[in-house]
């Protein structure tokens, strides 16, 4: 195997492991249960704040520190950034996302992870999300 192929494989394994950690965490935090998310939205259980807060702190520290300590990612060429903008699409999109989230208690991460945790009814949400993304893309210019 060439060196370039080895790097591609190493990156794929790293991505799989990172995803596994993410999915394991979503399961531990029971965010894969729509009922738990909905009970947060109904002000009955504030656990979701701890999940989000805990994740944000770890990510914040890593995004800040990693580029200072390392010239580049251990298996990659450069550190990416995903600059978000505030415009009409972001506002309308976020508002619609919230309506859907409040109706079903499922967001993209748990919809995917739920399949591995035996919560197969989340397949319905997964189908809905995929269709929503398709229609958004077909309507976009």
């Amino acid at each position, binding site marked *: 195997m060439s060196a370039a192929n080895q790097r591609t494989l190493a990156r794929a394994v790293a991505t799989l492991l990172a995803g596994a950690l993410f999915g394991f965490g979503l399961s531990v935090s029971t965010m894969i249960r729509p009922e738990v998310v909905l009970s947060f939205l109904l002000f009955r259980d504030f656990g979701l704040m701890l999940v989000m807060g805990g994740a944000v702190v770890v990510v914040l520290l890593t995004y800040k520190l990693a580029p200072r300590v390392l010239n580049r990612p251990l298996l990659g060429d450069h550190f990416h950034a995903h600059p978000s903008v505030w415009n009409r699409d972001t506002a309308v999109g976020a508002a619609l996302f*919230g309506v859907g989230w409040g109706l079903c208690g499922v967001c993209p991460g748990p919809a995917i992870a739920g399949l591995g945790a035996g919560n197969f009814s989340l397949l319905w949400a997964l189908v809905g999300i995929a269709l929503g993304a398709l229609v958004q893309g077909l309507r976009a210019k």
Partner: protein
Amino acid sequence: MKLSLPLFPFGWQHYLLGGLLVGAGAALLFVLTGRIGGMSTVFSSTWSYLVRSPFFQQSRFVDSRAWRLVYALGLILGALIWWLGFAGGQIEATAVPVWQLLLGGFFVGYGARLGNGCTSGHGICGLGSLQWPSLLAVLTFMATAFLTANLAARWLP
């Protein structure tokens, strides 16, 4: 020790631990590959395999679609390890009706892609990189989600 606040009727430790692990997953992805690991883009980038329209054939989807699928596969794998190794492998079920999952899911998919991010993209990665548009997006979807969930709880059977 009876310190569990009424804010957390089912305890708080698993929430914090789970959140730290979710963050560790996104952090590991960044340190090893430099990638930003929001979860909603995979729903657009995967369509680029099938739909030929210029929107789906943008390089930001085509160039990232392979690793995003691997990342999603990892999510399933991690949840599977939890399910079989820590949760006894009982089938989980939700009482949320199918039409709510389907219709709610549709809005989640449409909205997340129109607004360029979801609870992980804007919520975790966006706030994690201190981007104020992401904070506004989070406040917006939290507000409409609170409203929708409370109206649904009141009016739906």
